[in-house]
């Protein structure tokens, strides 16, 4: 993958969009425009942007409750995500899902799962279905370091390897599961090594570098498309904000957070672009302006959205056309 100016702008735009979008979310959350849980992706933007860059339209994505970034990078509009956070019918999940359950059939975005490791088995099944139907598609499954301890991680990795399924597993290792540090949860803290124990081709990547993630993802997706076998990427990253909006952050030092912020994805990308002589070509203010208007529009769209009529509360418990 070569990083030309267009790509550079695109990456920068996307990462900044995620950042600004979420900053707006914080504001709206404190104004109680947004309810429920809100898990921010700030600090981890490079991963979503780098991974999504490698996919084609027809590939599928499964993520966690911390999925605003992936959803935006995958191309779900800020409008429909914001409307979702407002609980409006125009939201990508009709207001039924909220922050933790963004869904979008058009971009094949299968959630937004709030049970840690709960989407891994689904990814196995999606990829199995592709394989059975001879569809040359990739299923990407993104999860945190906390998921690694769950039984479903183990069962799913084994199945993916055993059945040779076209899955890209992406572990966002931000070193904490809520307040519990990785070293308190895993006897082997090198997560990519755990994945390798299933005979899955597995690699550790600097998750703060969008270029590194993009490269590794592109390579991985190409390999998967060619061989049909799973690949595992461990992306080393850090969450700049609290786990959710209810978190006193007792479990980590301010200094540690500060240190990581200094090597945040926007910072290192800027440095890299400077090195490459591309930075001067990028009009950050223009990008900021563009993003600001996208976000303003999204908020307006969400504000003006409609509440689903209460009479439809029971709609979609079952499918509308029932041949049963």
């Amino acid at each position, binding site marked *: 993958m070569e990083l030309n100016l267009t790509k550079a702008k695109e990456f920068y735009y996307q990462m900044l969009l995620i950042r600004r979008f979420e900053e707006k979310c914080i504001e709206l959350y404190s104004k109680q425009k947004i309810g429920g849980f809100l898990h921010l992706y700030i600090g981890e933007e490079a991963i979503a942007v780098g991974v999504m860059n490698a996919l084609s339209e027809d590939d599928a994505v499964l993520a966690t409750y911390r999925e605003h970034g992936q959803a935006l990078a995958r191309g779900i509009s800020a409008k429909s995500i914001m409307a979702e956070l407002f609980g409006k019918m125009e939201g990508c999940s009709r207001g039924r899902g909220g922050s933790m359950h963004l*869904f979008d059939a058009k971009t094949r975005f299968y959630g937004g799962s709030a049970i840690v490791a709960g989407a891994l088995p689904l990814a196995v099944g999606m990829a199995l279905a592709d394989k059975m139907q001879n569809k040359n598609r990739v299923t990407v499954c993104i999860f945190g370091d906390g998921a690694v301890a769950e039984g479903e991680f183990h069962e799913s990795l084994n199945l993916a390897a055993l059945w040779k399924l076209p899955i890209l597993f992406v572990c966002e290792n931000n070193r904490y599961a809520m307040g519990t540090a990785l070293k308190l949860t895993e006897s082997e803290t090198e997560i990519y090594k755990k994945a390798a124990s299933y005979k899955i081709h597995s690699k550790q990547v600097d998750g703060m570098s969008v270029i590194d993630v993009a490269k590794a993802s592109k390579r991985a997706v190409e390999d998967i498309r060619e061989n049909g076998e799973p690949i595992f990427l461990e992306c080393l990253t850090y969450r700049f904000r609290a786990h959710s909006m209810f978190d006193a952050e007792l479990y980590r030092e301010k200094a540690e957070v500060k240190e990581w912020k200094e090597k945040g994805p926007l910072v290192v990308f800027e440095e890299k672009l400077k090195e490459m002589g591309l930075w001067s070509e990028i009009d950050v203010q223009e990008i900021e302006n563009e993003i600001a208007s996208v976000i303003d529009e999204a908020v307006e769209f969400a504000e003006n959205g409609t509440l689903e009529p209460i009479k439809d509360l029971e709609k979609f418990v079952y499918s509308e056309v029932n041949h049963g």
Partner: protein
Amino acid sequence: MDNIITYREAVRESIRKAMQEDERVFLMGEDVGHYGGCFAVSKGLLDEFTDKRIIDTPLSESAFTGAGIGAAMNGMRPIVEIMTVNFSLLALDQIMNNAATLLYMSGGQFNVPLVIRMATGGGKQLGAQHSHSLEGWFAHIPGLKVLTPATVQDAYDMLTLALADPDPVLIFENSLLYNSKGSLDTKVTPLAIGKAQVYKEGKDITILTYGINLFKVLEAVESLEKEGIAVEVIDLRSLRPLDDETIMKSIKKTHKVIIVDEGWKSGSISAEIMARINEQAFYELDTPMARVCTVEVPLPFAKHLEDEALPHAKKIVDVVKKVMGVS
């Protein structure tokens, strides 16, 4: 065209027909292939359909059930066999938090046309971890449908109906029924999901039941009829949705009801049925409703204890007589 076959064969034929007619259908579970199915249901299918479509899974209930959900969302029509309901506890997160919620959470975008079959029931001296009857318990979960075929015809039909359904359907096959025989008509239009069946008409009292207990009830009825008690027997067939209409209609006729189910008594499906009858037909009742359920114990191994723990014909007779006020 009728023919007499076993319940096991009926399930197998139904799977076979579905797999022949629809290439999206496949069967996946522990030992469904090389072993031939724990209860020999899928015997022969591996040869016919190859391991591409008859898939032996590792012991990973959560992952392969979840994989069934994923495959269902992605164009296939999986039949997941969880060997017995006892192991479904390991897959409950996938069933309740994914299969049952995805359509709703996604605002109608992703439906899950998944069929999960499991063997259920006690009565074989398999002890506390292998004798659960949880179909009524699963029926608590919105988003799922829960079917309990008792007859050979239903063993065949219900799988067909379930595969045609756009949403997740759980089918509970009592493993003691696999050897039972009955007639199968493959040309008849199956009775829809959610419909109960009046198995036998009668005017004095209604017995509601499902699955294997239908036969225990029929055994009881035989001796009750000798004493001049005309029992209406209803096979519920589907525990979610329940067929309130058929139930209430019968109550309006007999004004007395007992429910026989193999769940533990507290919180059994019979409790829900009682609640509904109370809500919908209270003034039709002549006497309190009664129920025959499993005694609230982890099922014991010793045969005499297990027999006593489960519903049986004599208990049913006794309870009917008590409700009828005769002895």
